[in-house]
């Protein structure tokens, strides 16, 4: 009759885990035992990388350095413009009494090459509670948003990718500010935009960025490019698929983002600062 007890325990745990999420602490504690396993499973990849790094020739390194220098030059010239634009933008926003923060703290994390459940889009990274990672934290790469943290352990955490069928992110079209929600489809490289009526202004090739609504993801990070639009007469909504900008399956390194503050908080803070400013001037 012990089996009945175990079945009941499993059912209760699954319900609690799905509905409430009180079990995150249990999961986090158990992940201490699981992390060494994942670390060992990742070792072959680490060793291969290390060996290939050790075997790179001088010529290849020179070539890479030259390429990096070029890249550095173009990026720093771009950044000059960006800094001026940012200063101007901040000044204009201050005139309009609206606030927006651009600076976010970031930390680089490495992927562990381990496989999780098939048919779910999840990855494991080598940063956890020790580095201040928290549940729901956004993850980006060099090209765009990748997903968010769903489970945090002491040394590692699990990331839910944009393409997972249970993932959704509030977005807007960069060209005209049209808001929508990008939902994962479970297929690799395809997201879907929800609740757009048939007559909206949207074109193939439009850039979709995170809107920052819901205050989980920071605003303004690229999410994807509109790939296909099919308007079916008689359907209430247009079907739009987008291709994620982030390289969800090719990255070795990802960026953890700490958004500055939640939008509401920063607005309050900004108005308080403004008040202080005006009173000082008076």
């Amino acid at each position, binding site marked *: 009759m*012990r089996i009945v007890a*175990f079945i009941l325990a499993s059912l209760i745990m699954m319900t609690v*885990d*799905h509905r409430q999420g009180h079990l995150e602490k249990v999961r986090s504690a158990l992940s201490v035992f699981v992390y060494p*396993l994942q670390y060992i499973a990742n070792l072959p990849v680490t060793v291969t990388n290390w060996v290939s790094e050790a075997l790179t020739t001088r010529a290849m390194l020179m070539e890479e350095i030259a390429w990096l220098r070029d890249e550095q030059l173009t990026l720093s010239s771009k950044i000059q413009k960006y800094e001026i634009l940012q200063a101007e933008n901040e000044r204009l926003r201050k005139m309009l009494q609206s606030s927006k923060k651009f600076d976010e703290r970031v930390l680089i994390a490495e992927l562990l*090459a381990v496989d*999780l*459940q098939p*048919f779910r889009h999840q990855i494991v990274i080598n940063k956890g509670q020790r580095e201040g990672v928290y549940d729901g934290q956004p993850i980006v790469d060099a090209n765009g948003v990748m997903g968010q943290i769903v489970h945090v352990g002491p040394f590692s955490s699990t990331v839910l990718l944009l393409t997972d069928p*249970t993932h959704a992110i509030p977005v807007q079209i960069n060209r005209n500010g049209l808001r929508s929600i990008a939902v994962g489809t479970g297929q690799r490289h395809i997201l879907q935009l929800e609740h757009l009526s048939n007559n909206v202004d949207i074109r193939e090739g439009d850039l979709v960025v995170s809107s920052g609504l819901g205050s989980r993801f920071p605003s303004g990070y690229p999410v994807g490019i509109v790939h296909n639009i099919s308007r079916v007469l008689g359907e209430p909504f247009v079907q739009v698929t987008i291709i994620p900008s982030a390289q969800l399956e090719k990255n070795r390194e990802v960026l953890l983002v700490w958004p500055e503050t939640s939008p509401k908080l920063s607005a309050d803070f900004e108005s308080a600062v403004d008040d202080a400013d005006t009173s000082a001037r008076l």
Partner: protein
Amino acid sequence: MSNKSTGGWIIFISLLIAFLLTALPLPVWADDSRPAWVAMVLIYWCMALPNKVGIGIAWCLGLLLDVQQGALLGQNALGLALIAYFVIQIHKRFRLFPLVQQSCLVGFMIIFYLLIASWVGGIMGIPPQTWTYWMPAISSMVLWPWLFVILRDIRRQYYVS
């Protein structure tokens, strides 16, 4: 585990390797048909030493597997506990089956195990989308004879009892 018995560490290592094989990255084409390693090794030990590896251990292993795979806590625990229960019920007959018949039975047990996972996924709103979801049952079936022979020889060599 009682103190009289020996070779508990062999069981531990075999399960450890099963967990490693579950986490090992595979190419995309082979990913869907990864055998259910932990379930297979568990089936073997439940059959060979039912007084040592029981439902409790199976359940704990399942919980660890849930954490490792990022699944709902309890999903694999339920599946593995039921498999252990079933194997322990029939372990005397199971030992006498020819290898082919054992393979078929293992295949059915893995299907049942996947069925529980798909049922949980369905409740969460993410049912399996393609038929390749059931591939682990076939790959486990094909690999069972080898696994059985290897584990049996190891068990005899190290007098695990």
